[in-house]
């Protein structure tokens, strides 16, 4: 998709809000030259806010999935560039190759050195080919595993950004042990004695997402999704009809508010009016504040307590599905 097409991408349900936003922007520019328009601008801004609230408070699960996949949605690198300084990206799994669908590295976040790991999507076709649409192969997960171990050795908190349709289902991935690579990430994250904070910023597709998700605190953006299977995959299996993804999305309980209710995420991070893609700066600052608070809390725990906290956190999940 050429850049212009991406920039103009508008989902049907967000169209009225996007149009109004456009008029606000025009009026704001005009008001800079003509202060008499300021009153009108204020009214329009209020209306845009109301419209966003009306439309976005009624979104169906599949509409939230669509927002999570919005091509203008901020990706891992958009957060890293706004939240971190002194980023040193680390490459390769030291075994097979370098997988650009996962970025990993060392960075400074509000005064702390941290290890960061996140799936990375591309904004255009060329970038998406390089990033494999954010669908990692085993070497991506083995790079993540290596950086988790590095962080543990040097006592750095681990911050992950989850944004993947899923681990890549291909021949090469199976040959190189996709299952083992994901399992090894779960294992290492279970063992590390440093704080781990995971943020689901877009798509949380199954095991490929969980490989970055075994954290002390899991946070999720308001319009992100996180599920055992994608709605399309679920519909294909249940009804042999991927087109029934909307039904599947409703059944799977994959939205941030659902997962908060189920105890799977500790915190839902609000998005700017109209979704994170409307204002990357604001989205990043909201994520940054939530992340800082979580790291602050976890800094009180000893290394052994951090590991134990993670064990107990996941140990409880599923109790609600066991009778008696």
């Amino acid at each position: 998709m050429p850049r212009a097409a991406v920039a103009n991408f508008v989902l049907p349900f967000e169209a009225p809000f996007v149009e109004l936003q456009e008029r606000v922007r025009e009026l704001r520019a005009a008001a800079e030259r003509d202060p008499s328009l300021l009153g009108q601008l204020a009214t329009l801004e209020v209306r845009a806010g109301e419209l966003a609230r009306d439309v976005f408070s009624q979104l169906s699960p599949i509409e939230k999935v669509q927002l999570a996949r919005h091509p203008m949605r901020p990706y891992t690198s958009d957060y890293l560039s706004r939240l971190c300084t002194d980023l040193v990206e680390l490459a390769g799994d030291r075994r097979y190759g370098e997988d650009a669908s996962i970025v990993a590295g060392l960075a400074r976040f509000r005064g702390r050195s941290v290890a960061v790991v996140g799936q990375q999507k591309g904004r255009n076709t060329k970038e998406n080919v390089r990033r494999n649409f954010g669908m990692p192969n085993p070497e991506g997960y083995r790079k993540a595993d290596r950086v988790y171990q590095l962080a543990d050795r040097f006592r750095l908190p681990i911050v992950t950004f989850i944004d993947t349709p899923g681990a890549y289902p291909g021949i090469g991935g199976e040959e190189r042990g996709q299952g083992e690579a994901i399992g090894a990430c779960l294992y290492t994250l279970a063992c590390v004695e440093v704080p781990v904070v995971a943020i689901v910023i877009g798509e949380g597709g199954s095991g490929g997402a969980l490989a970055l998700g075994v954290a002390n605190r899991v946070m999720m953006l308001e319009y992100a999704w996180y599920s055992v299977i994608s709605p399309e995959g679920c519909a294909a299996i249940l009804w042999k009809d991927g087109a029934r993804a909307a039904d599947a999305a409703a059944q799977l309980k994959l939205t941030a508010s659902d997962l908060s209710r189920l105890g799977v995420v500790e915190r839902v991070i609000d998005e700017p009016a109209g979704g994170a893609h409307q204002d990357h700066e604001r989205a990043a600052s909201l994520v940054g504040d939530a992340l800082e608070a979580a790291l602050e809390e976890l800094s009180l725990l000893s290394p052994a307590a951090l590991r134990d906290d993670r064990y107990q956190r996941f140990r409880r999940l599923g109790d609600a599905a066991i009778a008696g």
Partner: protein
Amino acid sequence: MPLPDKTPPSADASEKRSVGKGVFRKCDGCGETTYGSVLADRFGVCAECGHHHKLDEAGWCALLLDDGALDQWDAELCARDPLGFSDGKPYDERLRAAQRSGRKDAIMIGRGALDGQAVAFGLFQFAFMGGSMGSVVGEKITRLFERATDARLPVVLVSASGGARMQEGILSLMQMAKTVGALARHRDARLPFLSVLAHPTTGGVAASFALLGDVNVAEPGALIGFAGPRVIENTIRQKLPPGFQRSEFLRSHGMVDLIVSRLEMKASLGRVLSHLSGGRA
């Protein structure tokens, strides 16, 4: 033209009368017909071609455990429907229907002995919703590792599962993290985990504990992999090569240690256990 004589009933035709279900069994591998009882005596392994057929719980216990005896833990644990999930049929009803087989969920765990060595033993029951891992399976595997750690027992776990159970949504996914956490504590205690991979072991089970054994032992010809073959074919839009994701493929790609016929399985696991439990260095 004269009408053909009516053919008298032949001796052959009389043989076609039913002799009762299960007396004869056609091999899924080579198509040879054999006595069902012979196949059962050989734990589902075809005498002609070595094909491994599905083996039920009693068969697995008889195969691997001394006297076939498993002292079960948490046999009563059952699932309920945390999401109100329905795919046309509510999950609750699906559970009840599957439970009519006498199985409570898709795994049994307990304590037994393998060649005289006490083990914590787990066995997926594929017949129950494809061996899928929901919260009950995850909880029981977690308890298997926790109890084994407390009692200082090795774990032998036979996997046969399509992966995480869709009907419990994200909670099924969380079982992957939960079980691997318990495995990590078990490994920290320097206790062996032998992972036996039966047909099929895929999805969330393959991407959590199943390929993390200290020793991974596969049955011949088992399908083992992360993504299902149909998903891969739909993604890459090409046919998969023969033998793709079968045990032999995994061994040649370095993912499993041993491929062992069921008829050799107990001896082989016993040997590994005796080595791992007998270290003196």
